[in-house]
């Protein structure tokens, strides 16, 4: 039960200008789930990349199954039994499930691929996970949760005994999370070791045996999960006390700012009606695929819609494309920051300036660099974005700071309505609180704030009013006082219940 299968000691790793890991140690035993915790940029991913052979350590020792390992490459790490289930799925979307599972180690007879045999083996592993997936299905057509199952099945098929899971639940519905936990527990019983990385601390009690906490590239502490209180864990991660995970300010509800009537856009946005008022934050709750993201996109004019009327401060406005919405003062910080929120090859300055070039350029369209710098400096300061300077590429920042750029670019202009879609996905506790404070600040300024989130504690903690969506419709409206997890879940599944 307690034999150590991975032992990493005094691991150091530097990148030009940064000491990413400074004397970090980690121990994984067979038959346990080790939660590896830390804020974004704490070095968790770097450490795991060393374990899986993507990076080589500068110094320190590493043992896998009691055998000293000097340097690993991805292949030898796989042979040693290490497999990583990535946060962002690493698959060839146009190939089939089986083709992906056998990528790089296809079965041949002579020069001919043994497709039937590979499909059969793939099916065996998928069945082991009770995953309802055909080996011949094209990966692109699978929902994220099933893609993840394919990754896990791939790991199993390589006979992995050490599984690293990086934010495995961030894109799953609660039922899918249940299934994932069932599988993880099964692995644990089989004596495999699982390193589990997640920002969702609330799921740890259900799964973690031990924890190891890192901060700023350094090892902080580790021990049995049951020996820690949640506050202790957070304090160790953040390095300071976070008194209030969900800071709240109370404002008087004021005038109606924005109203949406009869919004229809495809299957996932059906007859949406709601209003936003000054001095309140409205949270959109619901399961994955309930249509929250689609609603924000339809309002913002990104996706086409069949019908819908918008009223801003009592006057009807037309929104046909995002520019119209922005001009009217309605902005959206989108869900997928790497895909929709950031130009990762452009600098922070350019990203912040992009939607505000009408201000920076004025009528002539000629950009004033002093105005641009001033605007950017203000955003960096107001949001305390951690960056060496404003000219570095956006993709060099940590997730939390990237999110601040996505949000920050909208806050330097005067808006009436700010929509956030999953404002805190994949960012750490400290950065989350900063985002919440920001939302509260907007609320105090009389700006109508709405946000969509699949994290229920967040919706209940931050929103003054909660709208629950299910299958493209708003199925319930709750005030903060009456909202409970059960009630939200009831509304969120109401459509399925009817069937």
């Amino acid at each position, binding site marked *: 039960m307690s034999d150590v299968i991975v032992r990493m000691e005094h691991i150091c790793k530097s990148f*030009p200008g940064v000491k990413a890991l400074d004397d970090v140690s980690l121990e994984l035993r067979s038959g346990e789930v080790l939660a590896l915790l830390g804020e974004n940029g704490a070095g968790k991913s770097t450490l795991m990349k060393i374990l899986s052979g993507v990076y080589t350590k500068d110094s320190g020792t590493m043992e896998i199954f009691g055998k000293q390992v000097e340097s690993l490459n991805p292949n030898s790490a796989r042979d040693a039994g290490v497999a990583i289930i990535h946060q962002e799925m690493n698959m060839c979307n146009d190939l089939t499930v089986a083709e992906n599972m056998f990528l790089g180690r296809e079965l041949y007879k002579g020069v001919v691929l043994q497709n039937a045999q590979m499909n059969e083996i793939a099916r065996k592993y998928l069945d082991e996970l009770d995953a309802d997936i055909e080996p011949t299905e094209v990966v692109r057509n699978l929902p994220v949760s099933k893609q993840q199952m394919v990754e896990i099945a791939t790991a199993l098929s390589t006979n992995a005994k050490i599984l690293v899971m990086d934010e495995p639940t961030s894109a799953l519905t609660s039922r899918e999370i249940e299934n994932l936990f069932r599988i993880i527990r099964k692995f644990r019983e089989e004596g495999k070791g699982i390193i589990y990385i997640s920002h969702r601390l609330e799921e740890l009690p259900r799964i973690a045996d031990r924890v190891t906490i890192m901060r700023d590239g350094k090892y902080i502490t580790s021990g049995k999960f049951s020996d820690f209180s949640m506050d202790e864990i957070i304090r160790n991660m953040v390095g300071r006390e976070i008194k209030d995970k969900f800071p709240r300010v109370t404002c008087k509800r004021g005038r109606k700012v924005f109203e949406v009537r009869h919004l229809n856009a495809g299957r996932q946005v059906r007859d949406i009606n709601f209003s936003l008022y000054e001095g309140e934050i409205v949270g959109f709750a619901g399961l994955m695929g309930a249509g929250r993201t689609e609603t924000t996109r339809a309002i*913002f004019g*990104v996706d086409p819609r069949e019908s819908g009327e918008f009223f801003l401060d009592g006057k009807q406005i037309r929104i046909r*494309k*995002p*520019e119209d*919405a*922005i*001009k009217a003062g309605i902005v*959206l910080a*989108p869900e997928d920051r790497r*895909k*929709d*929120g*950031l*130009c*990762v*090859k*452009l*600098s922070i300055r*350019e990203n912040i*300036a*992009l*939607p505000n*070039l*009408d201000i*920076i*350029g004025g009528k002539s*369209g*000629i*950009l004033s660099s002093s105005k641009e710098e001033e605007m950017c*400096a203000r955003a*960096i300061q107001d949001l305390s974005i951690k960056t060496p*300077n*404003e*000219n570095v590429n956006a993709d060099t920042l940590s997730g939390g700071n990237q999110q601040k750029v996505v949000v920050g*670019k909208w806050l330097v202009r005067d808006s009436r309505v700010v929509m956030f879609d999953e404002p805190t996905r994949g960012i750490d506790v400290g950065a989350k609180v900063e985002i919440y404070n920001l939302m509260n600040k907007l609320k105090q300024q009389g700006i109508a704030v709405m946000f969509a989130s699949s994290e229920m504690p967040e919706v209940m903690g931050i929103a003054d009013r909660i709208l629950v969506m299910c299958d493209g419709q708003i199925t319930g409206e709750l005030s903060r006082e009456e909202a409970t997890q059960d009630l939200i879940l009831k509304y969120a599944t109401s459509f399925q219940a009817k069937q």
Partner: protein
Amino acid sequence: MKKRSSWKRFFEIKGMRNALTAFAGLVVIYIVFGIINTKVFSLMNFLNVLRSMSKYLLVGIGQSYVMITGNIDLSIGSVVAMSTMLVAKLMTMGVHPALAILVALACGLLIGVINGFLVGKFKLPPFIATLGTMFVARGVGYIVNNNRNTDSINSTLSKPVADHFQNLFYYGKFLGIYNTFWIALIIFIVFFFILSKTRTGRHIYAVGSNVDAARLAGVDVNKTTTITYLVSAFCATVVGVILCAQASMGNMEAGNMYEMYGVAAGVIGGVSPLGGSGLLLGTFAGAGVWQVLENGLNMVHAQVGIQRIVIGVIVVLAVLADILLRNRKKN
């Protein structure tokens, strides 16, 4: 945040390192050829190099605009041919050069608009869309004079008018430098300014870096894409006019491969064909490298085959070196 000196900021401009490296390469190549054959250093040769590189600079500007949005324009060479044929044909019919140029510009820009809409609005892969217009524009060039090159423009135009046209675009000088270079330089400065200092320019970089994020930030992607193809078509049309002035006739096969010369000029200067980065300053240096190589190899009497091979190798090496350097920095 500390205030950094303007000098340092200049070097920190993204793509500046690549552009300056290309300029350094340009100087080195020029000196090497000059040592082999001192005639390379002669004033006359220098002026000729400036004039000849103007064509590459112009197609390079157009292609760079398109490449920075992450697209490509294969129709440039054909638009050059169409333009040169149209201008020449109209002038042989007695039309005044100014009017002939306007007609050619209108037709060239029409191709640009079509490219822009096919790629920007209808989301056709740029390779396919501009492959289509490449054939169409070349075809129009053929039809203009019934599948033959045109007669000399001197045959119908009065001598002063024809001379004035040819001097203005090719043979004449201003301040000792050929007009062709001045024209290219003015166009370069204008488009350099637009790309680096205006809203439109910033939108071009944003579209190339991340189309979805740009759209969500309120950028009109269709308009931005169309603008880049218009710039490309405009530059190609001007090159067509220059070629007509040079040859005093229209040649159906003119501009062959010019779209690729444009790619080469941009890429040598650090413009990424994947979009999102690159400076026109680099394109300037790239066009220079290209022309100095061609000129230098000519002066040392290398045969055409050798010239092609050297140029091909240089293009790949320029990009390879950049990638290797960047990878080393990462690790």
